[in-house]
């Protein structure tokens, strides 16, 4: 596979997740009376460097590739050349455990 995910897309997904978490943490700090030095670190937004994004893209690419390869093995074993949901179902548990 020559193609890969767009690092900007992955970055956008990460930022969404981080801002979601940030809001939750800020919400909790309002309730949490202890506040103070310990929690101040967490309210700063997380960032990622460019190479980390590239490695993340690679990781997701491997995920997609593995899913297809493992499902394809099952389909091949059944003598079918089209990958069906039942094939994906069979490989899903181990796939999710591995990733």
């Amino acid at each position, binding site marked *: 596979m020559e193609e890969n995910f767009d690092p900007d897309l992955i970055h956008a997904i990460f930022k969404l997740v981080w801002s979601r978490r940030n809001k939750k943490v800020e919400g909790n700090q309002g309730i949490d009376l202890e506040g103070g030095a310990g929690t101040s670190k967490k309210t700063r937004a997380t960032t990622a460097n460019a190479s980390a994004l590239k490695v993340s893209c690679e*990781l997701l690419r491997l995920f997609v590739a*593995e899913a*297809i390869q493992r499902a394809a093995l099952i389909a091949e074993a059944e003598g079918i050349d089209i*990958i069906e949901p039942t094939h*994906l179902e069979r490989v899903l548990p181990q796939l999710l455990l591995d990733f």
Partner: protein
Amino acid sequence: METLGDDGIGIGSGGESDKERQEEAEQEAALLRDRLRLSVISMASSHAKTLGMTISEPVVACIADLAFKQAEQMGRDVELFAQHAGRKSVNMEDVILSAHRNEHLMGLLRDFAQELKGKEPCTERKRTKKALKNENKVQEPIEMLD
């Protein structure tokens, strides 16, 4: 009965501005999910072709959704790792660590990271050499741990 899968139930967020923000975030998530799905569709069809097989639509949709969930989970994991290391910024090692569940996978990522480091001085636009190298490595499925 509540399970761990229930999200956002229990603690009231209170105030309408929170709900608006939540809706905005959901819309953004839907947009990103669609963009990811497009990428996955093209990757999946070309990969299936190289294997000499076709891939049915529901399977591609399922993989795309799973990939989105993986990406979200990855974001959470690397954020925690970086914070744990006292950093604000996620680096390559955080990402590699998040793949610790499969040794082989972690090794592949480390190699990829090494190659990236090696190419640091010149900005690579066409990663053809690296893509070829990786393609050779992932020819067989990743070994499953017993």
